[in-house]
Every structure is written in C-alpha cells, then in structure tokens.
C-alpha cells in the first residue's frame, strides 16, 4: 500500500513538472504579449517593448522558468502582471469558489445519475430504460451554453426564482441552493448521460452474473440481492468515472462560469491565457492539475477499499 502511494505521488510530481513546462511553452506561442494586453492596441510598439522589458518578458525561458519554480515551491507565487494582485491570493480564492460550485454539482449529479442508471438497468429493455438512456444521450449533445441560457431565461428572467448572476453563496443552505442550483444543472445534463450509462452497464452486467443468480436462487429477497450483491459490484467503474469528472468540474467550468458570471478558476485560466498573465496561468493550471490528480488518487484508493481483489493485486 505504501509503495503504491509513493509510486503514485512520484508519478504525479513528474506529471506536474511536465504540465508546468508545457504551460510555459504554450504561453510563448500564444499570439500577443502581456505588455500589449496591459497597454492596449493604441500604445506604440516602443511603449510595449519597454514595458515587456520592465516585466522581464524578453529574458530566456529557462531563466524565467527556473525563477518561477523556485518561487512556486517556496510559496512565493509572485504578482499578477495583469491584475496587480498577488497570484496566490487570486488563484486560491478562485479555486475555493470553483470547489464550492463543483462540490455542490457533484452532490447533485452523482446520486441522481447513479439512481436513474441503476433504475434503467433494473428495467433493462423496457420503456423506462429506453427513456432514461435516450434522454441521457440527448442531454450530452446539448452544450452547456444552450441549456444554461434556456434555464436562465425560464427560471431567472421569466419566473425570477434564481439570480441570473450567481455569487459565491453564504453558509445559509437556502442561499447555497439559490446561487448554485441553476449553474449546476447544465453540468448535470452533460455528466448525467455519461455517469448513468456507466451505472446502467455495470448493473446490467452484475445482474446477469453467476453470483447474482446464485443469490436469487438461494432465496435472498430482491432488495438484499440488489444492495449487497449487485450495486457493490456494479458501481466500481462508476466511481472512477465520477472522480475523473470532478477534475473536469473544477477546471472546465469556463462556459458555466461565464454564463452565470460566477468567479471561478476556469474563467481565470482562460483570461490569464488570453492576456498572457503567465504567473496566474501557471499557478491556476497547476492547482487544477493537483486537484485532478488528488481526486484520481482518492478514487483509486476508494476502488481498493471497495474491491478487495484490486487491493490484494497491488
């Protein structure tokens, strides 16, 4: 177990170093530069060059990268050239906001998707199964900005139940639902079909297995068969799917955050990339990557807990 952990963490570190290098390199090939972003299109080339020089943009990449790494690992993430604020503060603040939205969305999505997926499997081939599968597939095909706008127009503009621009909620449960329910629904639409399909497939397979037949034949009540024998086995692949999606939820919320004007990290990454705010871009991408890797690791460990065969094999 310990060896497994050490190996995984070491691999994750290598991956993070590669990601950070990739971000640095990508920022170099993006059109424009930070001086131009700050000064705008009507500043002269000389002004832009002078500012870029002042900001150290023209120094060799390895030098800048080395400095950045040294700062990052000691907790000094530098100052955003574009925003004039400490990077750490901005990035962690935004990450926190995204985590709140992501966690709420996961809590909403996972039970509903798994529940309906299992329900479909239990009615395998019947009308309910078809309905759930088809609607899941259709919803995947609808992009977030379409469903998001429809939801806003209906529930915020016409009915006035929810705010159009979602803020970071207070601790009040009512406020949490008010602020986060609407932005979570387009995410649910995207993930629902995926997660429900996994849950359905796993359950169908488990239902047809020998151990289920044995359980049924030895006279266990249907409820016990499903809870003890079917679900325990069928949900394993679903858990790994969900954990991968959590990374997406936190880092890939750009569309939803833009639409609902929610101050999360996805939009920060996009703005930093477009504006060449390298320090913010690096920090934001890395914390998202770390989160992604941690959630994967947690999923693997959970997998092991739920499935003794895997635990022994490692």
């Amino acid at each position, binding site marked *: 177990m310990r060896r497994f952990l050490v190996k995984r963490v070491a691999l994750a570190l290598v991956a993070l170093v590669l990601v950070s290098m990739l971000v640095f390199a990508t920022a170099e090939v993006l*059109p*424009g*530069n930070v001086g*131009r*972003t*700050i*000064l*705008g*299109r*009507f*500043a*002269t*080339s*000389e*002004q*832009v*060059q*002078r*500012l870029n020089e002042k900001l150290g943009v023209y120094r060799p990449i390895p030098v800048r990268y080395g400095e950045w790494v040294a700062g990052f690992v000691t907790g000094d993430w530098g100052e955003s050239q*574009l*925003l*004039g*604020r400490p990077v750490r503060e*901005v990035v962690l603040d935004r990450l926190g906001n995204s985590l709140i939205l992501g966690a709420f969305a996961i809590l909403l999505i996972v039970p509903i998707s798994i529940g309906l997926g299992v329900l479909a499997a239990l009615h395998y081939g019947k009308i309910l199964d078809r309905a759930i599968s088809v609607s899941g597939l259709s919803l995947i095909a609808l992009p977030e900005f379409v469903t998001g*706008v429809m939801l*806003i*127009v209906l529930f*915020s*503009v016409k009915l*006035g139940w929810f*705010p*159009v*621009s979602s803020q970071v909620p207070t601790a009040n449960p009512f406020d949490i639902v008010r602020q986060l329910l609407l932005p979570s629904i387009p995410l649910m639409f995207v993930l629902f079909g995926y997660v429900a399909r996994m849950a359905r497939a796993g359950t169908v397979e488990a239902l047809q297995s020998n151990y289920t037949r044995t359980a049924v034949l030895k006279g266990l009540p249907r409820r016990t068969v499903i809870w003890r024998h079917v679900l325990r086995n069928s949900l394993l692949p679903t858990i790994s799917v969900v954990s991968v999606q959590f990374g997406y939820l936190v880092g890939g919320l750009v569309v939803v*955050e*833009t*639409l*609902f*004007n929610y*101050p999360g990290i996805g*939009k*920060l990454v996009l*703005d930093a990339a*477009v*504006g060449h705010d390298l320090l913010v871009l690096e920090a934001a991408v890395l914390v998202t990557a770390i989160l992604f890797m941690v959630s994967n690791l947690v999923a693997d460990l959970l997998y092991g807990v739920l499935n003794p065969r895997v635990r022994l094999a490692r």
Partner: protein
Amino acid sequence: MGDYEYHLVEEVRAGRLTRRDFIRRASVMGLSVSSIGVLLSACQGGGSGGEGSGAPTGGGKPKRGGTLRIARVVPGSDPDPVTINDSGGVQTVQLAGEYLVHPGADNVLEPRLATKWEPSSTPDEWTFTIRQGVKWHDGSMMTVDDVVATFDRLVDPKTESAALSAFEGVLSKGGVEKVGKDQVRFNLDRPYADFPYLVSNYTFNAVILPANHEVGTFTEGGVGTGPFILKEYKTQQGASYVRNPDYWNPKLPYLDAIELVYFDDTPPIVLAMQAGEIDYNAEQPFAGAQALFEDPDINVYVNQSSAYRAIHMRVDEGPFADKRVRQALALSLDREALVEGLFQGRAEVGNDHAFAPIFPTAPPEGAVTQHVQDHAMAKQLLSDAELSDGIDVELTTQQFLEIPQLVTFMSEQARPAGIRIKPNILPPEEYYGGDPSPWLTVPFGITDWAARGVASQTIAPAYLCDGVWNSAHWCNKEYDRLIAALDAELDEQKRGKLAVQAARIQNEEVPSAIPYWINEMRAASKAVRGLEAVPRPEEAVFWLDRP
C-alpha cells in the same frame, strides 16, 4: 463682442451655421454659457439662451439616494487612468475620475475641472482656467500643478500612457505650463481648433490625477475628484463606489452609491438586465440587444455617433495597390442593406471618408458623391485594371460584435463584381497583438474604431501620412495639407470648404471603405432617470425612481 463672436453670429444669421452647430462651436472656443445666450439672442432677436450645464432631470424632480447597479465587460487588466484602453477599464475609472471639459448633448463642451478655456488667435496655444477649491477624494486640494503633471505624464513616451498616440503631433512633452496661480497653457505642436475635445473624455486617459500618482494604484481606491469615490475594487468581479460628499458641484450626485459588476460577455448582461439585477449598461452593442428593445421594463437610448468600422485596403502593395480595385470594392457594397441587415437601421450610411454625419464639419448632402452599389461599374473598374477575371483576396479581421456578419454580407455583395473574398477571422487579441500587428500589416482588414468628438481625432492617427494607426499605409500630401489647414482655421465657411475638399479626396482614393457609422446604445431599467440619449452620459445626474 469680439471678432470671432461676430463671425459666428454672422454665420448663423446667413443661415450657414445651424443653431446647434453654433452652440457647439462657441463651446469649443470656450465662450461661457451666458455669453452664448447673449450671442444667440443677437442672432435671432430673442429666443432662449443655451441650456447650460444644468443637470437634465429626464422628467420630474430628482430624488436623492439609492444604489445604481451598472454592468460592464470585465477590464483586460488592472484599471488605471493612464493605461485604460477598454470599455470595462474606462467605466471603472470614469465614475471616480474627471476631465477638464465634458462633451454634453450634441457634443457641446461643458466646463468640469476647467471653468474657462481660450485659444490664441492662431490657435496653437490654449489657456485653461482651472476650477479652484476642488478636493481630491483623500481631502487634499487639487492644484494647477496636478493638471500640468497629468498631461506631462500622458505625453511622455517613457510612461505607459495609452494616450500617447492621441496626442501625437499635437502636444509633446514640455508643452504644458502653469500660468499664474489658476491657469494652464497648452503650447501645441501645430494649430488645433478642436483641441478641447482632446482633454475631454474622448481621450479616456486624460483624467486629472494628483501629481504624485503612481500608475497601478488607482484600484486601491480614493483617487480622483469625481462625483463618486472608489471604495472597493474586487479583481475581475466589480467595484463599489460611494457618493463624494465634498463634490465641487454641491447639487450632485443624486445617487448614494454605485455597484459596478463585471461580466465576461454581453449576453449575460442582457439576461441580468431582463431579470432586473442590473440597472444600467452604458455600452450595449446592437448584436444581442434585440430582446431589450421589446422589454417593457427597459429603455434603450440610441444616439448617433462617430464609431465605425474601417475596411482598410493597403495602397502600397498587394491587390489593392491599384486605386480602381479599391473603388471597385467600394462600389460593390450595398450600404443600405448592411445598415438594415446588421443594425435594423440603427446606423448611418457611410461614404468612405472620415467625416461622420454627426461631426460639425460633415460635408452637406450632395457635396461628395455618395458611393452606391453598382456592380457594372465595379466590373468595369476591375477590367480597366486588367483584372477582368476578378480577384481573390483574403480579408483578415477579428471576432468582434457584428464584424463576422459584416464579412459574410460583404462576400455576398462583392462576388457579383468579381471580388471573391476569403475570410480569415482571428480572435481580437491576435488581430491587435503581435509586433507588428496584423491590423497594421494585412493588405485587407476590418478594424473597429470607437467614437471621437471631432473629425481630426478620427483622421489624424488613421489617415495622415505619419499616422501611427494608418493601416492602409495611405499617404496623400494634399489631404494632409487640407486637414492641417482645417485644424488651423477658425472661419466656419473656410472650415466647411476644406472639409469637403478633404472628404472628396478620401472618397475618391478609398484607403478604407467606411460602410456605416454606428449608433451608440445604452440600456437602462425604467427606474433610472436623468439619463438621456447623449454621447457621454454622466452617472452624476442619474437618479432612481424605483417602484
């Protein structure tokens, strides 16, 4: 009555100058509201005086108090008056900062931090009298030295001033001096009859700042003299302002506070306005605003402006080096259809010269031949240029508002003339990024230009030989001479003639096709009063009448 005043009165009496243009011109030359009133009565033997700088009320007696919620697209970088160059940054700064003069209705200039201004007879020297007793938001007194320092900073090539190109060729470092205890004199590089517009908010960056202002500290709050004090700035999210209790105009502002909320894009702003979460959006593009026109709780204020799109064609190389090819493109466009298709009529047809219909110097109807769609003529021009098979050209531009649709319309309209357009639509940061930027180098491109107060401001950087943003690389000595003469001329008849001559040259040479001049649009909830369809509304005179 001085000679100049007499000249203006004569022009109005002879019917060569409208009352509106008279008031505008008189305001540029720094005549006070009361003397404008006296002159007007001299013109017409009575009649009301100028409206003056009194606050418009937009119906009813203004109520005090309340918080106005404003939406704007998020600024691209930390806003500071010296560097601002986008809509979000400008809004953030202008609530707290002020200019020497303000363009009111019909672009008539009104006093703000300057109480009076006056040109020398040439007019290459302008003397501004600075308002006394104005307090900075931190409580200290604003002085003439602060004003001098503000402009020194803006024209210093070593600073990050985004206004450097706006003052290029007009005002250089060392050109600003303190005269006496309450006056500032601008010694210009060349005569410029419309100079006061350059120190109004048509030069966003000309906000008066303390002499010791450090670029980048504006968002810490408390910088400026304006009606509202910046209290809190939340990076990329918004800003809060409170009423300035020591504002130099004790009657204003009416509002207690302003909440500025940043959005990433316009569509969410439209939705937030429809839901009643936002009261005001000062820059509502037509694209996507259709829902607001139909909303019974929202007013959309539309005013003519000098904002436009320049379809530039490089005259020094590539397919458009031959003038006839540029003319062929100009004659392939159906401008009425563009205005209707892209704006449902909320734009004015352009004629490929830079004198917008709202500029006082705009040529009268018929003075310059209007370019209209004429495919036969366009084909003839191409065949004269030995291109009877037509041409294939790449049009490089940006993903911004209606421009991609404009490209589609253009391709359709130009094809029958034999001009086959291949679009290359880039993100704005790529079109304007890089060094040199595509917008200044591609042979065929479309650039968005914001509204300016007078024609020279539009023309100087984009169409003069040494213009820094001359994307067509067009250089016409006679045109340059006419514009310089126009800037130096005070006689209204001569100004009009010079403008027509210049416009004819540009219309004939077509460095850029200018298909339309866009109307500016602002959207506000019906609760917002005091707002009118003027070029630059000021939040200081807004008040709220919430049901």
